[in-house]
């Protein structure tokens, strides 16, 4: 799912990542709609295909997050949603007559959009990530990075990394889950240099040097989304989809889910939660 205040380009970015309209862009709340008073959870599922490989992708949006005057505990609905998915999975797992392939609605990755103020993280960002890094893989992303020059970007990223470290926030890929030295070296580099990825998204194409590229056309130049000199979108895409997609799922299953399961069993006195009748939860794949 994607989190962050409205207007940070989340939907555009997700659409760009998956090269399809997987997220409904709110090009502004029209007159009848308002900023929702509480955080909503909107999950939309798609099946996308590439090279014969099919992927069922579910994008979960959280409109209303951080938009109110008083944002205390606005992460709670999100935490609740994530835990509900773990609970669903757990119930299915402990079922007597359980399905061969348990429908997996668990959240594998959370892209958290940081506002590019150039100063530091906002108190809300810290609170959210502190609470949720314990239940889900969080990948912090600096949104609308075309508002910062190269120097500003570098400084901002350094400051954000430091703040996350000082506050004990472990974002994905978490240090403690590096499986071997190879992983560690690769992930160290990503953790200490590339992340958080400063991205720009766009669904419009322009002609640059004879090629058609995704970009944003400003009066002073065209920002190319996939140009590594302009922004780190390509790094994010490769990271999430091309190299670490499977790992994201594994960490969710082996670590976050297990943590949840252990806690539930403990609370229940070491026994699995009872489900006498199989609940009709078949809606949840979409």
């Amino acid at each position: 799912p994607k989190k962050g205040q409205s207007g940070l380009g989340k939907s555009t970015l997700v659409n760009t990542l998956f090269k399809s309209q997987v997220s409904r862009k709110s090009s502004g709340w029209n007159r009848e709609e308002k900023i929702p008073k509480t955080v909503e959870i909107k999950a939309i599922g798609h099946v996308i295909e590439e090279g014969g490989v099919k992927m069922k992708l579910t994008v979960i949006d959280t409109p209303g997050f951080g938009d109110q005057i008083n944002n205390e505990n606005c992460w709670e609905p999100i935490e609740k949603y994530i835990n509900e998915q773990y609970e669903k999975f757990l119930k299915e797992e402990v079922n007597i007559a359980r399905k061969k392939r348990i429908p997996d609605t668990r959240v594998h990755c959370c892209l958290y959009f940081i506002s590019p103020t150039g100063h530091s993280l906002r108190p809300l960002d810290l609170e959210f990530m502190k609470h949720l890094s314990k239940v889900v893989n969080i990948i912090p992303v600096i949104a609308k990075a075309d508002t910062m020059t190269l120097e500003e970007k570098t400084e901002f990223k350094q400051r954000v990394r430091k703040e996350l470290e000082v506050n004990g926030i472990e974002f994905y890929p978490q240090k403690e889950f590096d499986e071997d030295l190879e992983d560690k070296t690769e992930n160290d580099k990503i953790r200490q240099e590339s992340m958080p990825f400063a991205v720009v998204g766009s669904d419009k194409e322009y002609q640059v040097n004879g090629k058609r590229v995704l970009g944003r056309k400003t009066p002073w130049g065209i920002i190319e989304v996939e140009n590594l000199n302009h922004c780190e979108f390509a790094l994010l895409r490769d990271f999430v989809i091309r190299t670490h997609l499977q790992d994201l799922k594994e960490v969710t299953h082996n670590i976050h889910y297990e943590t949840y399961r252990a806690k539930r069993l403990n609370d229940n006195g070491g026994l699995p939660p009872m489900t006498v009748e199989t609940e009709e939860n078949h809606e949840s794949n979409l």
Partner: protein
Amino acid sequence: MDSIIIQERLVERLLSPRTQAQRSHPGKLKDHEKQYVGFATLPNQVHRKSVKKGFDFTLMVAGESGLGKSTLVNSLFLTDLYKDRKLLNAEERINQTVEIIKHTVDIEEKGVKLKLTIVDTPGFGDAVNNTECWKPITDYIDQQFEQYFRDESGLNRKNIQDNRVHCCLYFISPFGHGLRPVDVEFMKALHEKVNIVPLIAKADCLIPSEIRKLKERIREEIDKFGIKVYQFPECDSDEDEEFKQQDRELKESAPFAVIGSNTVVEAKGQRVRGRLYPWGIVEVENQAHCDFVKLRNMLIRTHMHDLKDVTCDVHYENYRAQCIQQMTSKLTQDNRIESPIPILPLPTPDTETEKLIKMKDEEVSTICACASWMLELESRESLQGCPIEVVLRLPLLCPPVGSWGGGQG
């Protein structure tokens, strides 16, 4: 007869706003010098005195941190007001409350001095819970009004310092889809206390079509929520077309989408204030890139005085009227008079009030008698009349009870 007409026409020309600026042809006056009174030079005299006295202006900036407020202020006034600023990190900001910080700087240009005060509001809108985060700001503005009110009503009014806020630049985030709840609440809390000029901050992250949409959106929402932002005054009908056209463009560009910069970059062989990106250079003073020039012209070159006027004539007067009404209602309350609408004069006073009125009336007539007697004495013996003044002043501080208007003697 002819000379009178010429005189009149001359005076008209001299006093009309456009020619004031062009008045540097003293030669033209020579022919008529002997035939006109000469008060047409009053504007000149006012000008000279004002320049000697210097001008002052208080500008408030408000909005979430990280929207480029400090950079913009530095760009507007070509100074560096924030050299020693220390930025707080997120943890430090969790418990931060909104502060009010004033920076004053004296700047001079072509012999004209300006004492510029920037009122900063760090912490606004940054916390997790921002309920009423505008209260310290409204309190500050009210305090300045109150201070001025006291000074104005005081005995020694020689050097009243005017710390009233003349304009508030409110920075709207370009990362949203329009106004956020905190933006709306802030502006509604302040629109009757100060001139609000809303701005779209960091506009270089938006492409032209996005800026257009956002401006439309914000204008709609300002209407919808009944927010009264600063209105540019209508230009005089005798201004020339070019001026009127500029004025129209100004009004249509609101809210201004601005960019600021503390650095100078090289663009097309020229050194300009701007921001250097891998994909191009944004020039702050290029009107095709942003509305910075419009803002600067409006704020400093054309509307600074109007902003001060509206602050004095509208916002301050509102405050003063409210204050006096409150004082009045408090006094009537102290006299234990029940009234459903304490701020209006009582239509049918009860016996207690009537007694009070009678008493006061007697007092006043006594004072009147005293006063006229003392004046007589004075005319005979040229007294230094201080005691009389003091006596006569007292009634002014009493609660207004009916009409005792004849009490000055």
